[in-house]
């Protein structure tokens, strides 16, 4: 018991953490200051998660942590130790886009594409919780994700179209 307690309260400069990302387990030594976003990009090599503002405003780095959306720039990698993560790379199956990605493609839901990973991950959570959202609900859900190209209309249209496709 004593050993366990001292183990848990050990004060560390680095930690070995294991994170399962899109079905693959990654184990690495990690400084506490490393954000989950940088861990995904640098340690896992998954650069689909984009960093725009790095302080939780733009939403580009949104990923799913244990099924729920989180800002990867506001989550330290050490906090995700043991968690299951889905990033934008986990949406398609090989070269086959999932219905949400396809709807973005068909509705011009992206222009430069920088914000798109965050948009997709935020919308993934929305559609899992609410398969039939109206446009106002989509707009509210995406209000934490900034896009500098589209003016949002085509993104909202994409999400609504995806919802229709996924309902079948």
């Amino acid at each position, binding site marked *: 018991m004593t050993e*366990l*307690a001292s183990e*848990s*309260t*050990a*004060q*560390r*400069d680095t*930690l070995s953490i294991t994170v399962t990302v899109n079905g693959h387990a990654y184990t690495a030594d990690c*400084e*506490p*200051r490393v*954000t989950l976003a*940088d861990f995904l990009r640098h340690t896992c090599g998954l650069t689909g998660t984009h960093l725009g503002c*790095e*302080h*939780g405003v733009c*939403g580009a780095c*949104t990923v799913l*942590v244990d099924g*729920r*959306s*989180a*800002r990867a*720039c*506001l*989550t*330290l990698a*050490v*906090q995700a130790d043991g968690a299951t993560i889905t990033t934008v790379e986990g949406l398609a199956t090989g070269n086959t886009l999932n219905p949400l990605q396809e709807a973005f493609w068909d509705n011009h839901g992206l222009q430069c594409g920088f914000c798109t990973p965050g948009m997709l991950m*935020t919308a993934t*959570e*929305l559609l899992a919780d609410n398969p039939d959202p109206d446009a106002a609900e989509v707009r*509210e*859900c995406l*209000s*934490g994700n900034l896009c500098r190209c589209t003016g949002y209309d085509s993104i909202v249209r994409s999400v609504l179209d995806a919802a229709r496709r996924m309902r079948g």
Partner: protein
Amino acid sequence: MKPPAVRYARAGDVREAVALLAEHGSDAKVLAGGQSLVPLMSFRLARPSILVDINRIGGLDRIEQDNGSLLIGAMARQRDVELSDVAAAAVPLLPQALRYVGHVTIRNRGTVGGSLAHADPAAELPAVVTALGGDLVLEGPGGTRSVAAEDFFTGTFTTVMAPDEVLVGVRLPRLPDRTGVAVEELARRHGDFAVVGVVAAVHLAADGTVDLVRLAASGVDSVPVRLHAAEAALSGARPTADVLEAAAATVDASIHPTDDVHAPASYRRHVARLLVQRALGAAVERSGAER
């Protein structure tokens, strides 16, 4: 930017967290959801030497009804409280106010305790806890103590918590059935911190007079402000339009807004009075409904 180098310790229980804080004093910071602390570190506005992670302490995330009050553990995620039937039944003001906190993605990780300990004077949760006269439960080396909300917040981002104390939870009195609640906020965009926010709860007696009113404003002082004079003006009265207007007129003397980049103080005064009138009106209208 990136957070600066920092050491890290995972507390197994509250006692361990307190011991770590006692060892490191104000160089240590408690890490809960990290939705305020991590960006502050990235901006280098906070440079703790060690983070004390309380995320893995069992039982700190409870949401329970107990003896006429709602008990929320410090690590309860804001989104979980927002969606909790237990919280909605006991304190319906809470889920309503939480919808104004950031975005779903932020609330998924952000915690009730983190928001209260961070003590942003424009934030919603401190205003709710202040309006309802909640108690904050702190644990330190000497044991546990309970602090009333109006004594807890002492200034912008400042509370009475000692550097070696951990906020473990908050206790809110249950609102009687058929209490009407309302949140009114002026913000530039949904999810932004409010320029001014008002939270209200009103219960009517069988004869139509107000027998319970709770009211607080955010963004109008360095701390959330319980609007006692407005409550007194409404208490025992029939909530006619004139009475609501008279109650709102008392607000000016209760608040101390300052000019900043978002709005001048005079505008905040004007908006506070308006939002109080709206929030009281909405709460009165919603009172009497079953929940």
